[in-house]
């Protein structure tokens, strides 16, 4: 008989891994990992403000992520500072501000580590419902707009001339990123969200022959990492989020060496 908390953790982790495959593939293809990092780190600011203002935490994470994302789109057009510098500044300053605000909010017993590295094993029923519903929503949007997202990613101008609404898709993708950040927050924590988005797709890339294959293989590898990571963490009493990421990283290197050595022949 499996304990409820492990079952909950498993379901939450698997839902996240399933959507992280396709969404993470776009992060890899569109080179958005820095952007993802910035959103993830600003999630901590969202939590801090949520606690301070006594708001629902998921809600305040999404709101802060969207504000930061819109801010970034706006700032992308300026030319005074290079975009990666800007992302670097925002990613770390939002994290720092988050930690500072959390420490002065003076609420008793804030477990900072849980926010930074996830707290999958303490996931509550309502959290689980939220994770599953949000994941399903992200998956549905990706499925519905898959071809358009892909077209815009391959060549934005061609897509636009062929009638795809490029701007609408860009905003949609940002909303999905904010949503998955709020979901993944619970599971792997602020610092490891991006890794779950990019490691499985990067591993899948080594063997995939089409965009769809890459997304599906990434989902499968993500699920594998969740299952193995979770049970290993339970056995060895290690933190769950980091354990999942370690397993994912191992799959990446295995596939990397496997595929690059078989290409030599």
């Amino acid at each position, binding site marked *: 008989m499996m304990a409820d908390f492990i079952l909950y953790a498993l379901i939450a982790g698997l839902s996240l891994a399933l959507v992280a495959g396709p969404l993470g593939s776009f992060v890899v293809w569109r080179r958005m990992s820095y952007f993802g990092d910035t959103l993830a780190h600003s999630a901590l600011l969202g939590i801090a403000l949520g606690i301070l203002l006594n708001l629902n935490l998921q809600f305040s994470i999404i709101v802060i992520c969207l504000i930061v994302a819109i801010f970034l789109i706006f700032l992308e057009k300026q030319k005074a500072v290079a975009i990666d510098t800007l992302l670097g500044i925002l990613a770390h300053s939002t994290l720092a501000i988050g930690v500072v605000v959390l420490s002065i909010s003076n609420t008793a017993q804030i477990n900072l580590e849980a926010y930074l590295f996830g707290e999958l094993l303490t996931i509550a029923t309502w959290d689980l419902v939220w994770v599953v519903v949000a994941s399903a929503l992200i998956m549905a949007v990706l499925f519905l707009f898959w071809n358009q997202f892909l077209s815009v990613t391959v060549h934005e101008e061609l897509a636009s001339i062929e009638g795809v609404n490029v701007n609408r898709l860009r905003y949609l993708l940002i909303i999905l990123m904010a949503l998955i950040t709020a979901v993944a927050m619970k599971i792997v924590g602020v610092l490891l969200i991006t890794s779950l988005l990019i490691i499985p797709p990067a591993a899948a890339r080594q063997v995939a022959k*089409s*965009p769809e294959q890459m997304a599906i293989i990434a989902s499968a590898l993500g699920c594998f990492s969740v299952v193995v990571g979770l049970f290993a963490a339970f056995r060895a009493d290690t933190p769950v989020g980091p354990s999942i990421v370690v397993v994912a990283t191992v799959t990446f290197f295995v596939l990397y060496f496997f595929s690059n050595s078989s290409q030599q022949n």
Partner: protein
Amino acid sequence: MPNPAISENVLIRASHISIQFEDRQILQDINMQVNQGSIVTLIGPNGAGKTTLVRIILGLLQPDSGTVWKAPGLKIGYMPQRLQIEPNLPITVKRFLMLTGIKDARAIQELLDELRISHLKDQQLRNVSGGELQRVLLCRALLRRPSLMILDEPAQGVDVTGQAELYQLIVRMAQQYSCGILMISHDLHLVMSATDEVVCLNHHICCHGKPEHVSTDPAYLDLFGVNAMNDIAVYTHNHNHSHDITGNVVTESRETDDG
């Protein structure tokens, strides 16, 4: 507003287009149009604003002033200057073509056959070489059955033998699908003979008209030098060059090189 009554067979018309980037005037009061079934070639030195004009006509860029009128329901096929494929994105030629939203495998196959690139169908797009990649892009543009094709230096990165062939192919396909063409090209000698109208651009329209006319226009000679005229003369009288067994072509050495 242009009068629709006189634009029955006008596909697209740009009127009084001006745009400026920061302090530089890139385009000034440009007027041009493409009619059904005609081929318009846009030439001009580097930095003359050719690509900017094309981007405005395509609707990718808003001009500071002026309007672009499109025939109702106009479908445009666009062939970009180059296609850079993200190395982390595995995609076959066939899947790339299906990004148009067209999933009709037979239509895709027929067009691939016509362009003689059906052997590329299942290859990764990243591994397709320059000349063949241009054909893949042409295929994607044609797949939607456009009535206007816009091509930005379609033969860039194609070797000399391939260039003439590619232009012939473009012209033939345009005739077959009876669509108009607007293209930017540096390869004057290759496109002049097929072109109905040449527009010579250097921030403003220096001259335009039939190729024979433009190539002797003082404004054109000013921009490209007398050698350019010889270029055209040489090539229009030298269509039937032959290849040796290794595919080499013997060409006169050209002195102008303002590529």
